């Protein structure tokens, strides 16, 4: 299938400066990519930060087997309340998966992407994975297909992959040094043997690097995922970023380790901690010098459905899907119209923002600001669409933006819900609001559509200024406006807490 180039971006890819919603975090990612790559990812929520506000994806869990063990994974785990990779509620056959995809795509017109990501390794289940892709290419040619892999059997499968119209592949690469690898991968299954320790890690690394190169030589877009594990590979990931960029990966996604004892993983049980928000951001910023960084990943389940921040999997269990009466042809037409509409709106938004760009950012002289302004972190409550449209109390996650005198950039998201929502084991007496406030540590403002009196007071007491004045406004405009106000009041001049990471 030939990919249609929709909505040519309003500004050339190479143009510098900050003038649209493509600035800051987004431009870190995409704006300096060649046009043909931008055309491929502009509506892919997992590859484009802009797109993730507007488009949806789903994973189908057709691939249960795995050929390696990672210390952050537990193959026994299956919990409805869990949200992390490798977890699913029901395993599907390829036929069931195709039915589910068609049903979801008919009900969620924002859906552009279908991925296979587990719960094992998709390429360790080649028949199930490729049968699913084969049927979908035929029945839903408008849906982009992608696959995530640990890379071990990638070189052996590259030719088959290329036959299936897959133009996005994600490889999880946590290291390029077997010494480091031996602390992450206890064993791999290779050439009919279980191989442990350093030797296994070395083979895995070789295959990952070989597979990466083979894919990029064939023109397939490769994103590299890395799990940041403090004390294990945190110092090493900068090097990984350099190596994978040199081999042609176009995007690097450094994700925080998720490790809790109740997950039963090696890291969870052994008490290995995940990185703090600051540590993660610092590493992402370091790697950003060499590589397009991705910061909006939600580390979703292998059966996730919907926009990135949400999971609508419950609405599409197999028994519900079987009972749905759907006109697939009509659904595809509707979907195309709906998505064309989004594209049009986005283009318009971009043009408008370009027009008023100069006014967006703060002219320091005009404000009479003499001291050096400092960057400020702000949290945003949104349900999608790129605007501030969520009630503070309804937010399950906040998007974090950094405003500075030169730009507004997206730097990540923070979940406010615990991974396990179950009552007994998690009750530590801390109120939900106190937890949210702790989650927002380092932020100085929170922008939402509305907020109640009690949280308002407590946020203020904690040094986080609630703001409901920018409801339905585009996020970056609102953040810039609030920052301008802070500058004017002299609130953004010198560090109130500790000095914050300055944007480059």
């Amino acid at each position, binding site marked *: 299938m030939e990919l249609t180039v929709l909505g040519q971006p309003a500004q050339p890819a190479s143009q510098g400066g900050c003038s649209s919603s493509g600035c800051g975090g987004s431009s870190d990612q995409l704006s300096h990519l060649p046009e043909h790559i931008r055309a491929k990812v502009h509506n892919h929520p997992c590859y484009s930060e802009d797109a993730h506000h507007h488009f949806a994806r789903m994973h189908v869990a057709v691939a*249960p*087997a*795995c*050929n390696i*063990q990672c*210390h952050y994974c*537990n*193959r*026994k785990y299956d919990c409805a309340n869990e949200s992390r990779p490798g977890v699913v509620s029901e*395993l599907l056959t390829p036929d069931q998966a195709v039915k589910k995809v068609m049903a979801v795509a008919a009900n969620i017109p924002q859906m552009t992407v279908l991925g296979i990501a587990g719960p*094992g390794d998709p390429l*360790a*289940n080649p028949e199930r994975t490729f049968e699913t892709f084969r049927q979908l290419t035929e029945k839903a040619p408008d849906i982009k297909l992608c696959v995530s892999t640990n890379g071990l059997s990638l070189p052996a499968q590259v030719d088959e992959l290329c036959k299936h119209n897959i133009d996005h592949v994600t490889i999880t690469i946590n290291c390029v040094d077997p010494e480091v690898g031996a602390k992450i991968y*206890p*064993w791999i*299954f290779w050439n*009919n*043997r*279980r191989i442990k320790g350093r030797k296994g890690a070395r083979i895995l690394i070789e295959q990952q690097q070989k597979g990466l190169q083979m894919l990029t030589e064939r023109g397939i877009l490769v994103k590299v995922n890395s799990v940041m594990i403090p004390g294990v590979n945190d110092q090493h990931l900068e090097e990984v970023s350099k190596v994978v960029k040199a081999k042609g990966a176009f995007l690097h996604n450094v994700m925080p380790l998720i490790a809790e*004892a*109740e997950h039963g*993983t*090696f890291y969870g*049980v*052994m008490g290995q901690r995940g990185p703090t928000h600051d540590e993660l951001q610092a590493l992402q910023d370091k790697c950003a010098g060499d590589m397009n960084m991705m910061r909006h990943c939600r580390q979703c389940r292998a059966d996730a459905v919907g926009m990135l921040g949400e999971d609508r999997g419950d609405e599409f269990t197999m028994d519900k899907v079987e009972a749905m009466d759907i006109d697939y042809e009509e659904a595809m037409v509707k979907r195309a119209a709906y998505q064309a509409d989004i594209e049009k709106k986005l283009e318009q938004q971009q043009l408008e923002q370009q027009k008023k760009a100069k006014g967006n950012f703060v002219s320091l002289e005009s404000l009479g600001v003499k001291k050096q302004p400092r960057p400020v972190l702000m949290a945003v409550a949104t349900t999608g669409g790129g605007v501030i449209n969520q009630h503070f109390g309804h937010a399950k996650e906040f998007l974090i933006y950094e405003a500075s005198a030169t730009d507004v950039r997206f730097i990540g998201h923070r979940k406010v819900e615990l991974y396990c929502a179950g009552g007994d*084991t998690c009750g530590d007496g801390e109120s939900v609001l106190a937890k949210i406030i702790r989650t927002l540590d380092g932020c100085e403002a929170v922008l939402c559509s509305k907020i109640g009196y009690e949280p308002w007071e407590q946020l203020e007491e904690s040094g986080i200024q609630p703001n409901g004045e920018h409801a339905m406004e585009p996020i970056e405009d609102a953040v810039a406006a609030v920052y301008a106000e802070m500058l004017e009041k002299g609130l953004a001049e010198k560090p109130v807490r500790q000095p914050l990471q300055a944007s480059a």
Partner: protein
Amino acid sequence: MAYEIIETCVNCWACEPLCPSNAISLPPIGASAERSFFRIDAQKCTECEGDFADAQCASICPIEGAILNSFGEMANPPGSLTGIPPERMAEAMAEMQAR
């Protein structure tokens, strides 16, 4: 002489395509059972002799204790695959129960 899969199997399918004797299958759920899990046909299992140096099912299985050898011993005892020392696992379980 045969290997055996027991009920701690998580149905990940990894072993099934590897068996050189096609001895592994997932039986349909019986009337009384809540779930089914993979089984090895003892008549067919050769322990991979003549085909591979190591028993294939036991070499890819990710679950400690889920596969028994012909002596009824765990092919992959606790700690051998995850690297979690069994004592530490017991401690962690106790800590979680106490919470």
